[in-house]
């Protein structure tokens, strides 16, 4: 008889992973089950707190019959459109301004004070101005998303430019690079790590901008869906919309990670990790 075989490290790892998944499911079931049970025995009032089964029903109704403000896919699409457009414009502006100010001391000295002031204003307040000046259509939401994204990306692009390796810049200059060539061939590639990191975070901000904008006043969108549900004291509706937003945000996050991996292919310092 041989001694009982030691489990191989691979199988031990697999077993641990399975345990983690099982525990995660257990937590989910405990929370949802506890919530539902508390409603059923009368501990919580479903009018104020909603209930998981009600939320599921509301989501089902929305997908099959449409929402009170129109078909569900349209609300999701409008919000995504606003957030995506705001993200592209805000990120583009942030990158260009960050690099320009990072590379030009005069520009930085002149504008840094305004950027600081702009950054200190709570962005959500700007939503009211945008609704007044740009109306209830998509542009007031796009503008809010742009503002949300801009400062994050700008800050990172600016910092990335400032962190560019002095020795590499000196080397490029000696090798014959002009100011513009240094910017294009040294500063931008080395700032890219910073910029990409900021893009990842800032799509979430764009989504917040779009939804808050819709919340303040809109004809379509997930923000409007939440506001409408709130207005009719429909707790299940608010939770259902929340879940939708979470799903959309997670999907966008996944897409961005994929895009990032594509970019990483030519980034040697990251490729090393593979």
């Amino acid at each position, binding site marked *: 008889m041989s001694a009982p075989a030691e489990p191989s490290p691979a199988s031990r790892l697999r077993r641990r992973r399975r345990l983690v998944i099982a525990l995660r499911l257990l937590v989910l079931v405990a929370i949802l089950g506890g919530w539902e049970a508390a409603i059923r025995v009368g501990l919580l009032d479903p009018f104020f707190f909603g209930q998981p089964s009600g939320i599921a029903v509301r989501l089902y109704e929305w997908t099959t019959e449409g929402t009170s403000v129109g078909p569900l896919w349209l609300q999701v699409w409008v919000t995504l459109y606003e957030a995506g457009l705001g993200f592209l414009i805000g990120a583009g502006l942030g990158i260009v301004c960050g690099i320009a100010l990072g590379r030009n001391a005069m520009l930085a000295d002149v504008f840094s004070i305004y950027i600081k002031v702009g950054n200190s204003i709570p962005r959500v307040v700007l939503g009211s101005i945008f609704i007044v000046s740009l109306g209830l259509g998509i542009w007031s939401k796009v503008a809010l998303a742009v503002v949300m994204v801009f400062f994050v990306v700008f800050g990172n692009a600016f910092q990335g430019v400032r962190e560019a390796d002095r020795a*590499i810049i000196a080397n490029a200059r000696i090798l014959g690079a002009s100011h513009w060539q240094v910017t294009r061939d040294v500063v931008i590639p080395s700032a890219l790590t910073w910029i990409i990191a900021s893009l990842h975070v800032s799509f979430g901000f764009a989504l917040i901008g779009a939804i808050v904008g819709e919340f303040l006043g809109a004809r379509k969108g997930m923000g409007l869906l939440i506001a409408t549900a709130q207005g009719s004291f429909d707790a299940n509706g608010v939770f259902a919309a929340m879940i939708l937003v979470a799903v959309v945000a997670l999907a966008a996050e996944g897409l961005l990670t994929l895009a990032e991996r594509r970019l990483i292919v030519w980034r040697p310092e990251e490729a090393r990790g593979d």
Partner: protein
Amino acid sequence: MPDGNVIAALEEFSLDVAPGEFCAIVGPTGCGKSTTLGLVAGLARPQAGSVELFGRPVAGIDRRIGFVFQQDALFPWRSVLGNVAAGPRFRGGRDADMRARDWIARVGLGGFERSYPHQLSGGMRKRVALAQTFINQPDVLLMDEPFSALDVQTRELMQEELLALWTQNRGAVLFVTHDLDEAILLADRVAVLTTRPARVKSVYPIHLPRPRQVAELRYDVRFIEIARQLADDLREEVMKTRRS
């Protein structure tokens, strides 16, 4: 200086380097050797006084200059080929890639054209840096402790590599190092600097025959004699730094 303190790194610093001459500068750490090279390269401006190159005051970066840095200054996002071809590409020269391939072969890195710097060893990266600099055929080559980060064996190989490349190119070389042996092995003249403010304490001509085999020369009696004399001089300087 960020804190507003100004340190006179150089004072009455005077050193002439003839065309085609290999001149090494040795001095205690922090005496302003790197500052000197930065001034000659045009990377920094002197607060007072002037640096002359080819008989004219330095105003910006001269195209006839090459600079090999102490740290790794390769472009990490470019392949070996892209790194070596950078100079000709920046300068708008034609067939940059063809010339780059030639120089990569000359420093013994043929086959590594598509590798990225992080995939190479320290010695190989230095070879890329040498090819990157020599491809511009500089008349004046400034080197700031280029081999100080390498292990002893690699350093010796790189010193021979440098001498071989220099023999083909024959520009003037200003080689800063804190390694006295390295200075003597490579240079025609060795200038020993004083502590801050840096002055040229003395200049030693090195009458060792060329071409030199670095590995063998190390054990040559003539080399040892010169090394001892210079070491004594340098020790005096180091002791002065300690006392102040």
